[in-house]
């Protein structure tokens, strides 16, 4: 069974500080990993995926298969980054690409 663990529920930092949101996963195959974000009063939306290997809004995430981790990082947090962040996993090239989510972490960036 696949599982996603986000060990922290809340991260509070000052503007300009570095951010690292932790995500660990367990899955026997080759998963696809995602970070989804939900801003206040908005719907859940994709932030980035490991396959794209791109930086979105200054965020990056590297898949570490040895440590089964997919931590989300940003060198300098902005107030507009305050939101709920979910790490998610799906099977690659499966007939059912359902997502398995972690419990999420609230990022609060103070001025």
């Amino acid at each position, binding site marked *: 069974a696949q599982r*996603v663990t*986000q060990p922290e529920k809340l991260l509070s930092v000052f503007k300009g500080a570095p951010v690292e949101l932790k995500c660990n996963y367990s899955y026997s195959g080759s998963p*696809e990993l*995602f970070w989804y974000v939900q801003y206040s009063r908005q*719907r*859940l*939306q*994709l932030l980035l*995926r490991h396959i794209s290997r791109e930086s979105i809004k200054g965020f990056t995430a590297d898949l570490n298969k040895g440590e089964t981790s997919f931590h989300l990082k940003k060198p300098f947090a902005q107030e507009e980054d305050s939101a709920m962040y*979910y790490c*998610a996993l*799906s099977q690659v*090239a499966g*007939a*059912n*690409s*359902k*997502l*398995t*989510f*972690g*419990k*999420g972490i609230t990022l609060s960036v103070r001025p």
Partner: protein
Amino acid sequence: GAGVSQSPRYKVAKRGQDVALRCDPISGHVSLFWYQQALGQGPEFLTYFQNEAQLDKSGLPSDRFFAERPEGSVSTLKIQRTQQEDSAVYLCASSFREGINEQFFGPGTRLTVL
């Protein structure tokens, strides 16, 4: 274009009532997913459609939960004889085609069972 829409946005039901939650996916999207999000938790998979075919219903918590997508577009999630533990936000997501793993989420329906 319009995103995924869901209705109603809020639903209050008395224990034992039946409810029906509607999802309008993005036009042309083949895949449709339902998730349940309890307070303080991440979304949990309920069921998946590819066009009108329900290919996976492994996440439905009991036989009181039923989903359909008869014409491969709009989907309805029905919960019979609601219980307090059914209180949650129900999210619908759609994606364009198999293997393209970007799901677009609706705003959700918040169900409260009294």
